[in-house]
C-alpha cells in the first residue's frame, strides 16, 4: 500500500556532467559509483582533473566500487566509512567551495535527499544539484507523529523505529528533511494495520 501521485515526489535528472563547471564535486553512495563511471564513458576522463569524489560503499561493499573509483586518478578521492561521516566532510567542502563548482549526488534516495539537504544549507538551489538514483529503492521516511526518521524503509506500512506506530508511506516528500512522510494507518482501530508489502526493494 502506497499513496502515490503526489507532486513533491522527487525526480532525478541524471548526473549529466556540466562541462562549463570549474570544479566537480561528487558525493556517491553504493551503486551511485556506477552513475559516475557511466558519465565518464560519455564525456571522457578530463573532468577528473578538477573532480573531488566522496564515496561511501554502504550495501555495495562486496562490489569493490571504491577500488575502481580510487584508481580513476581524480584530483581527490576520499572513502567514508558511513553516510554521516561522508556528509560531514561534504558539508566542510561545500563551505569552502566557490561558484562554478558543480555538485553531483548519486545513490539511494535517502542518501540523495540528505546530500541535497546539505547543499541547500549552503545556499544551493536543489534544482541545480545533479542527481541520479542508483541501487535499492529503499526510502528514508519521517513519522509525521513523533518526527522520528527511519532509514532504509522497504515496506509499506512499516513500523516507526522511534514510536512503533504502523505507518503508511506516502510519495509526499520534504526537501527540507530529505525524507518521505509516513502516516499512521490504523489510528481509528489500533492493531488492524494491513500486512507490510515489500514495495521498495
Amino acid at each position, binding site marked *: 500500500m502506497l499513496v502515490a501521485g503526489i507532486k513533491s515526489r522527487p525526480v532525478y535528472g541524471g548526473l549529466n556532467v*556540466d562541462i*562549463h563547471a570549474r570544479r566537480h564535486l561528487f558525493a556517491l553512495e553504493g551503486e551511485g559509483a556506477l552513475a559516475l563511471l557511466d558519465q565518464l564513458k560519455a564525456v571522457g576522463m578530463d573532468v577528473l582533473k578538477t573532480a573531488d569524489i566522496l564515496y561511501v560503499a554502504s550495501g555495495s561493499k562486496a562490489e569493490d566500487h571504491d577500488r575502481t573509483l580510487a584508481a580513476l586518478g581524480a584530483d581527490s578521492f576520499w572513502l567514508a566509512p558511513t553516510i554521516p561521516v561522508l556528509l560531514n566532510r561534504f558539508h566542510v567542502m561545500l563551505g569552502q567551495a*566557490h*561558484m*562554478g563548482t558543480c555538485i553531483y549526488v548519486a545513490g539511494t534516495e535517502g542518501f540523495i535527499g540528505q546530500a541535497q539537504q546539505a547543499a541547500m544549507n*549552503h*545556499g544551493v*538551489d536543489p534544482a*541545480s544539484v545533479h542527481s541520479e538514483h542508483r541501487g535499492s529503492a529503499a526510502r528514508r521516511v519521517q513519522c509525521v507523529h513523533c518526527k522520528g526518521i527511519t532509514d532504509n524503509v522497504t515496506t509499506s506500512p512499516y513500523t516507526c523505529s522511534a514510536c512503533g506506530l504502523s505507518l503508511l508511506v506516502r510519495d509526499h516528500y520534504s526537501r527540507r528533511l530529505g525524507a518521505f512522510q509516513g502516516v499512521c494507518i490504523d489510528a481509528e482501530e489500533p492493531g488492524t494495520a494491513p500486512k507490510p508489502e515489500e514495495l521498495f526493494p
Partner: protein
Amino acid sequence: MTINTEMKVRVAQIAQVADKVKRFRFERADGQPMPVFSGGAHVIVSMRDGKALRRNPYSLMSSPEDTVGYEISVLRVENSRGGSAFLHEKLKEGDELVLSQPVNLFAHDHRAKKHIMMAGGIGITPFIAMMDQMEREGAAFELHYAVRTRTHGAYWKELQQRYGKHRVKIYCDEEKLFIPVADVLANQPLGTHLYVCGPAGMINGVLGKARELGWPKQNLHSEEFLAPPPGKAFQVRLARANRTIDVAPHQSILEALEANGVEAPYLCRGGACGQCETGVVSCDGELEHNDHFLEPDDKASGKKIMICVSRIKGNAVTLDL
C-alpha cells in the same frame, strides 16, 4: 486573472537627477498609505496623454518600507513611443495619475549567501530598492554599475556614500572602464546569486559569461522591460467574442484591445511575466515574437503569442479571446 486594483496618485515631486533622467514621486490622492512592496517590484503607470492612454511598467526605486509614496526614475528615450516623453515634458507636480499595485518579477533569492547586482544605465532602479531591503536584512551584496558618463549615471554618488565604495563600484564607458564580469564572478562563494538589469546586449553578455563559468541557471536573474516595437498595421480577430479589431503601427495588440473596450489579462506589459499569453487560432501572416517569456519551441509552434509586445507581419491573426 488580472489583479488590477488601481490606485489614484498625485505627483508629489519631480526632480532632474542626471542627464535625461527624472525622478517622480507619487503619493495617494486619498491620503491612504501605499502597500509595502519588495525590492525589485514594478508598477504600471497609466497616463492619459491627450486621447491616448499609455500604460508602461517602471521599477520602484524608493525604500520598500516607505508607505507614504512610491518613486520611479525615467530615462528620456530618443525614439519614445510617448511614455517617457509624456513623463519628462508634460507631467507636472500636482497632476493625477493611476498606478497599479506593485508586482515583483525580480525579487532577490532569500536562500542566497551573497547577492551580486550588475546594472547598466537606468537599469539601476530596481537595485536601489533591493539594496535598501538587503541592507536592512543584513544580507551580503555588491553592486557593479555601468554608466555612459558620470553625468548620465543617476544615483551613483548617493549609493557609494550610503553603502561604501567597496560595495558599490562604478564603471564609466567614457573612461573606458567596463564591468570585468569574469573577474567579478571568479571566486564567489557557493550560494551567490547574480542579478542583471540593463540593455538586452548587456544582460545576454553577462548571463552568457556566467553560464560559461559554470554558474547554474537557478542563480541567474535578469529583468528587462521591452517597449512594444512598432510595425505595420494588421487586424486581430477574436474567435470567441466574434469581433475584429485594427492594430495601428505604433500600437500593441493589447493596447488595441483596450482601446476597443476589450479587457485582456496583463501584468508587466513588457514581455516578461507571461500573464498575457494568448492562444493563436490561425494567422494570415507571420508571428513576430518579441517577448522574453515563451520558450523557443513555443514560439516556433505558432500556437501562442504574448500580446503585450508581440505582433504579426501580415494581414490578420485570430486569437482565442
